[in-house]
């Protein structure tokens, strides 16, 4: 018997799907912006505030990068209430995504900061800047420019990993899919549609981040060429 695809029941739930997509996008954008800001602060703290702060940042990064995202999510959603902090699912999801992403982004941005040649720091210091000013005005933008492609990949991964938030009944795209599946008994069709939507979202985000990178860091390639010249000299 040939397989009979029936997509009509799925499309009948399109309002639900749109809501799910919007929540997935909202969580992802929120986590990207907040996670990026947090990561920059963590890298700055590690670079500027001495050994003990650096070790704390390292510990945080290793903790978040060496435990499953699902477990982190459960810790926040089921664990925090034991401490008297009760977060609704969506907030817990946003917090978990932000913390998780910030750890990966910290590691990436730190590599970018390390790649900035010492001569740039010396130029800033020689112009009477404080180390904080050197970090903020001299190091940060070229460092971000260099690692923007790696950051972008991490952001896309986070978009996809947001599907895990369906485990705490957050009605983002995957959570919505589970509901539709129950309503329609059309598992395969449901997940074909959801797969395609994730694919489109991820590819769109990737292209958008590439464009954004080129807009924010117009000299993204020149940074490297300049240092290559100075090295050769």
């Amino acid at each position, binding site marked *: 018997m040939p397989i009979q695809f029936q997509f009509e029941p799925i499309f009948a739930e399109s309002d639900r799907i749109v809501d799910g997509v919007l929540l997935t996008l909202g969580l992802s954008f929120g986590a990207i912006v907040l996670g990026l800001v947090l990561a920059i602060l963590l890298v700055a703290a590690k670079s500027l505030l001495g050994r003990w702060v650096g070790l704390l940042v390292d510990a945080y990064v290793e903790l978040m990068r060496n435990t499953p995202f699902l477990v982190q999510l459960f810790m926040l959603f089921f664990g925090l209430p034991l401490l008297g902090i009760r977060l609704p699912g969506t907030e817990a999801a946003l917090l978990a995504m932000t913390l998780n992403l910030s750890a990966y982004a910290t590691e990436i941005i730190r590599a970018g900061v390390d790649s900035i040649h010492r001569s740039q720091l*010396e130029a800033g210091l020689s112009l*009477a800047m404080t180390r904080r000013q050197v970090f903020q*005005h001299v190091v940060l933008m070229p460092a971000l420019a260099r690692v923007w492609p790696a950051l972008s990949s991490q952001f896309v991964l986070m978009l996809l990993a947001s599907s895990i938030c369906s485990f705490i009944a957050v009605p983002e795209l995957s959570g919505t899919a589970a509901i539709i599946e129950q309503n329609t008994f059309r598992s395969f069709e449901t997940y074909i549609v959801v797969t395609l939507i994730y694919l489109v979202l991820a590819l769109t985000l990737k292209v958008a981040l590439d464009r954004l990178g080129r807009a924010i860091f117009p000299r993204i390639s*020149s*940074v490297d060429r300049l240092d290559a*010249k100075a090295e050769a000299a």
Partner: protein
Amino acid sequence: MPAVLIEDVHKSYGKLEVLKGVSLSVETGQVVALIGRSGSGKSTMLRCINGLEAFQSGRIEVAGHVVDQDPKRLRALRKDVGIVFQSYNLFPHLTVGQNIMLSPRITKNVPQAEALALAKDVLAQVGLSDKFDSYPDNLSGGQQQRVAIARSLAMQPKVMLFDEVTSALDPELTGEVLLVMEKLAKGGMTMILVTHEMNFARNVANTTVFMHQGKIWEQGPSRELFAAPQTPELQGFVKAGAQG
């Protein structure tokens, strides 16, 4: 009161002693050329003067500041002492104008309008008024180095240090940079410059100092020093066309 006073400075990297008791005095408005083979300690000497390198013993006073490693005092010193490096070290993500205005704005709180006027003024001094909005990577090496000099000048320093600022440049581009430095010297700037340009040292520097193996081996008024070097080491160095 000399503008720069260096007294018996010793500096080691680990076990390697790089400066073995250097003393030097530079009067206000004087131009001193530092020459010597590669590895003789010229850059280290210069970097000790603005505190980029710490030294183990001795004393340095520059533009009225005693050099130590206290960050606050170092910043005060660096507002009065500019340095230009061989590799320009312009900030690649900022335009020429932004490169120049950044430090006056954030370290001296110079108002935007004043910083702008200052930047235009120093850019005119180095002959690059039309490059205000260019990015460093759109400039030639010689132009980048002139911007680096302008960026230092915008801090209105009392003393300027130059570390082989033409060594990374193609020969046809060194002239424009040397010209800017000569103009500065004529304008009365106190300068210490490490250079391989022997003609420039002879013609522009009041005093030339020959460093060898971490010591000041020989020094004197530039013309005399080049006309009649006393030590065999300097004689060899001058004869060899001052390589390294």
